[in-house]
């Protein structure tokens, strides 16, 4: 299957690994990712106010590009996924936004929320299938105890995101099992990392990160994985009392598929 792919700003800069390992792994699994042309930054945070319109236009442009190609729109960054999926939901349900955004964009045909937004993990679960992924694994990460960190943006609000059970998710744990490792369940896996508060109030972010890493370590984790560049930053750069190695889930996928050392690195 071929997807339209929306990488987002951070995957082109500070989170190149999340992108590159994701692309190479998808290719190895027979999934084509076609980066949409001229995509714009999604805005990183979903505009919650009911009168915000301009701040949703870049997401609508990306959605319309996928619609034009008749493809699902695949995301990898948690924040991009959150913003684009919720804006798409707004375009499906909010007639006022639909009218004003289309009046402004003047697309060939109005965009009415037709595209489907799929996160990379959902693609692995629903398109590839975790059973098939397990069979494709050449280098199982046996015995590694991995804490899946969901954070906020993939899960909430669950009515719109419909990603997994918001309080007891399992998709990343199922991924961890599929690549041969052992998932560790801990209480803080769906609590906030501190997000952009790291800019203005570093101690507040450090407090959040310490609580998350302590919870993961107490449960026996040796490694914590994420799909979000801002979670990665906080868990890595703002860890003080408790420290755990942090990786993007795509890097482990890439290793498990035995792709390391290939692709002319």
């Amino acid at each position, binding site marked *: 299957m071929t997807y339209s792919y929306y990488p987002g700003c951070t995957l082109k800069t500070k989170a190149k690994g999340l992108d590159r390992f994701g692309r190479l792994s998808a290719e190895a699994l027979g999934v084509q990712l076609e980066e949409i042309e001229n995509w714009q930054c999604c805005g990183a945070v979903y505009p919650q106010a009911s009168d915000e319109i301009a701040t949703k236009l870049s997401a609508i442009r990306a959605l319309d590009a996928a619609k034009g190609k008749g493809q699902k729109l695949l995301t990898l960054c948690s924040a991009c996924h959150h913003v684009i999926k919720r804006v798409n939901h707004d375009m499906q349900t909010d007639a006022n936004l639909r009218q004003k955004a289309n009046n402004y964009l003047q697309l060939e045909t109005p965009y009415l929320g037709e595209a489907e937004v799929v996160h990379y993990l959902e693609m692995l679960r629903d398109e590839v299938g975790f059973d098939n992924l397990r069979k494709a694994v050449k280098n199982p990460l046996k015995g590694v105890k991995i804490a899946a960190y969901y954070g906020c943006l993939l899960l909430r609000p669950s009515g719109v995101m419909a990603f997994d059970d918001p309080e007891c998710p399992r998709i990343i744990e199922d991924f961890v099992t599929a690549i041969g490792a052992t998932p560790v369940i801990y209480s803080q896996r769906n609590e906030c990392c501190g997000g952009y508060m790291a800019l*203005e109030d570093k101690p507040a972010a450090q407090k*959040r990160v310490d609580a998350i890493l302590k919870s993961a370590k107490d449960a026996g984790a040796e490694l914590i994985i994420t799909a979000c560049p801002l979670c990665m930053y906080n868990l890595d*750069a703002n860890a003080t009392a408790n420290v755990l190695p942090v990786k993007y889930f795509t890097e482990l996928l890439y290793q498990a598929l035995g792709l390391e050392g290939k692709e002319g690195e």
Partner: protein
Amino acid sequence: MAANVTTEDILRISGVNPRKCMKCGKCSGTCPAYDEMEYHPHQFVYMVERGQIDKLMQSKSIYRCLTCFACLERCPRNVEPAKLIEAVRLAVIRQQGMNHMTENDIPALLDDKLPQQAIVSAMRKYKK
């Protein structure tokens, strides 16, 4: 602050109905920024309803919400306190000269690993 923002303005911007609140306190109980706030999520709900908008607009609490959607997800009455906090913040930063942070403040806050996502988020949250 002479903006004279009313309860009706905040309800219109947020789309929230604070009268649905049954005051269980779950929003504040689950808020990861609770300790950082002068006014907590449940207080936003009743203070907006009572028209105490100026107090909220003058409080740094409006910049402490992490937009993690925990209060919104876990509210048994679907009140969505985070949307009220966002609406009060917007009522402030949409005024001339009321940005909380601008791009000029960013260089001093940068480090090698800081992702673009954090900067874009801050600019969306703190300035117009």
